[in-house]
């Protein structure tokens, strides 16, 4: 095994302190991978010069796929020849990031053979990120991954790797089966994931309830967030138990209810469920006493994205409620119409959310065949600039 040989004075500072150190990780990996050595060197240089040393992009990949690999080349390859190529592979994670020790070891072994031995567990979109390899290794690595039952995730103008919260596997609040939905959607659209067919990227994220533990409302073009339609399930004995245990139900629970639809008279908690906006707060605070209702399903939202180009967007309501058992069908139907529209009207590098802003929500709804409903807006327009359509 290679010994530590580089002088990494600056990076060494980042081995100090209680939080686990990525520098240690790189050094660790460098025991079996000489690549990591040059990575350390180049990184130390970046720390000295306060700038990155990677060149812009570069199209590399595995045969037949248009994405899944991010090409990366050093701009100082003479100094750090081992990272002259340093591409990452995005490996599609299992729904909810559940693993067995065995599956993890398989991944480690493959990556040790074909890459730097460094990973991100996980990338921001959700993939297992294999961090750094050479062009030649891509195809063999992909082959071994396939044999182990893994496939690549997305990059480029494709459907990106969907992700989901732990959901029914580990959470009492999951209003639909996020793991299954994520898995099914991923398999349903393998072609769209691997062969970029769109004007730009398209992300799905699945959260089981309005707590939105995968940040889907902020980061996915199509966000599916579990919710319920009927009454919050309430266990009065447990409410009393919380009160007895010292919880200030008036201040901690009722006063924080955004729709002010809860009343606590010192003994009995009453919820006016028609006024409830399903924010989860009361349930979060009293998980033993309150639970989402029984008529469960999801809200489908559309169009979230980071700021580039036209400013960040949060996803907005497209369908207020779809029963859990109709979710997959509804989603598929919607998605096909949305993609068709985007395909036809989207400009290059225009996310669906930006397109909707550009053409107007009503025109978008017309195109995908949904009726406008007041739940889609926080308020109707306040400007009188209405494009009336010919006499209807």
């Amino acid at each position, binding site marked *: 095994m290679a010994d530590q040989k580089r002088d990494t004075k600056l990076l060494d500072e980042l081995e100090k302190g209680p939080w686990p150190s990525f520098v240690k*990780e790189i050094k660790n990996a460098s025991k079996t991978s000489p690549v990591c050595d040059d990575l350390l060197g180049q*990184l130390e240089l970046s720390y000295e010069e306060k700038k*990155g*040393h*990677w060149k812009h992009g570069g199209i590399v990949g595995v045969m037949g796929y248009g994405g899944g690999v991010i090409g990366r080349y050093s701009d100082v390859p003479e100094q750090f020849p081992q990272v002259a190529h340093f591409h990452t592979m995005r490996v599609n*994670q299992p729904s909810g990031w559940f693993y067995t020790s065995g599956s993890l070891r398989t991944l480690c072994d493959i990556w040790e053979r074909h890459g730097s031995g460094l*990973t991100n567990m996980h990338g921001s979109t959700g993939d297992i990120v294999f*961090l750094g390899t050479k062009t030649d290794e891509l195809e063999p690595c992909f082959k071994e991954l396939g044999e182990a039952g893994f496939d690549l995730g997305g990059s480029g103008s494709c459907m990106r790797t969907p992700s989901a919260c732990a959901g029914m596997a580990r959470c009492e609040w999951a209003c639909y089966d996020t793991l299954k939905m994520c898995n099914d959607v991923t398999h349903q659209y393998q072609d769209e994931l691997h062969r970029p067919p769109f004007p730009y990227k398209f992300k799905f994220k699945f959260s089981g309830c309005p707590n939105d533990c995968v940040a889907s409302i902020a*980061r996915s073009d199509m966000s599916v967030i579990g919710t319920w339609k009927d009454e919050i399930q309430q266990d009065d004995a447990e409410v009393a138990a919380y009160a007895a245990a010292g919880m200030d139900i008036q201040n901690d629970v009722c006063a924080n209810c955004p729709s002010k639809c809860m009343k606590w008279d010192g003994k009995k908690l009453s919820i006016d469920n028609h006024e409830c906006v399903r924010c989860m707060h009361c349930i979060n605070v009293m998980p033993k006493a309150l639970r989402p209702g029984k008529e469960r399903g999801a809200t489908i939202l559309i169009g979230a994205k980071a700021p*580039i180009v036209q400013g960040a967007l949060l996803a907005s309501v497209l369908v207020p409620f779809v029963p859990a058992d109709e979710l997959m069908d509804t989603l598929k139907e919607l998605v096909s119409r949305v993609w068709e529209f985007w395909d036809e009207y989207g400009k290059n590098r225009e996310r669906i959310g930006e397109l909707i802003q550009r053409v107007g929500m009503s025109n978008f709804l017309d195109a995908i065949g949904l009726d406008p409903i007041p739940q889609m807006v926080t308020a109707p327009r306040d400007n009188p600039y209405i494009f009336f359509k010919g006499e209807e």
Partner: protein
Amino acid sequence: MAAEPVKRITDIGPPSYEKFLHPVIKKNYGLWKYHETLAPGVLCHVAESGDKLFTVRAGSPRLLSVQSIRLFADLADKYCGGYLRFTSRNNVEFLMDNKDNIEALKKDLLANGFPVGGTNNAVSNIVHTQGWVHCHSSATDASGIVKAVMDALYDRFTHENLPAKLRIALACCLNMCGAVHCSDIAILGVHRKPPKVNHDTLPKTCEVPTLIASCPTGAIRPATVNEKQSVEVVEDQCMYCGNCYTVCPSMPLNDPDNDGISIWVGGKVSNARTTPKFSKLAIPFIPNNPPRWPEVVEAVVNIVEVYAKNAKKYERMGEWIERIGWPKFFELTGIEFTRYHIDDFKNAGLTYARSTHIKF
């Protein structure tokens, strides 16, 4: 029979999650009743059946060597029947049905340098991006700042003593891969100089119309330089977003003296109580100061501590600020309010104070 030529395996998608679920999970899938927190980083989910699932959550640097992953696998084998998962914020969760293993596992994790915590009203892991480790776009490093900040907030990870959840994210450029735009505290790498056009390489590497169209402010104009078709940047109109660089390698923005960090606060994602919110500008610029970015660490810690001291129970950062008002936020944190804080992008007018609701 003769061996068939091996068919290349493609489009198989990810393995099914079902293969990786703990037997207790399989049995109680969708039938969980409630959960309790046994200690910071230790959860107990109770099923309708009465079965219990214990979770121990460990902090991770996200950038993991195969060595550390194997360590996790070993610990999972030792205590969890081999079952574990990662969270949406890159922590590792060990899943088990035996309560008795919790303490031993925690000890092993700590011994190996992995803290347990991040649940409930703690600081959890910092969602972050590539930085100088892998990206060409970065205005700063990612992992280094995360390490320095988490060192400073270590006790806030291992204790649940904040008013509410506190979610920090970092992105090394305006592409915001860390999706910092809805975080309690966001650390964002920013450039402050327009791209330096490389007129030599531009004609070969970029499509001029696409390049011009990429600029949100229309700052890029066609130009002929040395008789070659190229572009020029109207510097006044450029706000250094880097989108031109994304579509064209000949427009680099890197500039050691002018790249650095901005800090944003008050965003959230959950629908709990209030609707999701974008993060808002707190500090426009702090120079890059590797290896430990002390000014950034100090700024973040200051905001966390002022929040911890002043917010009410259950109040997320943004909820607290909305209650006390932004003027008070700047007063309490001692952060300077500057011209940069006033929005001048598309919907700017809607951020102007359009009432006389003022506190004196």
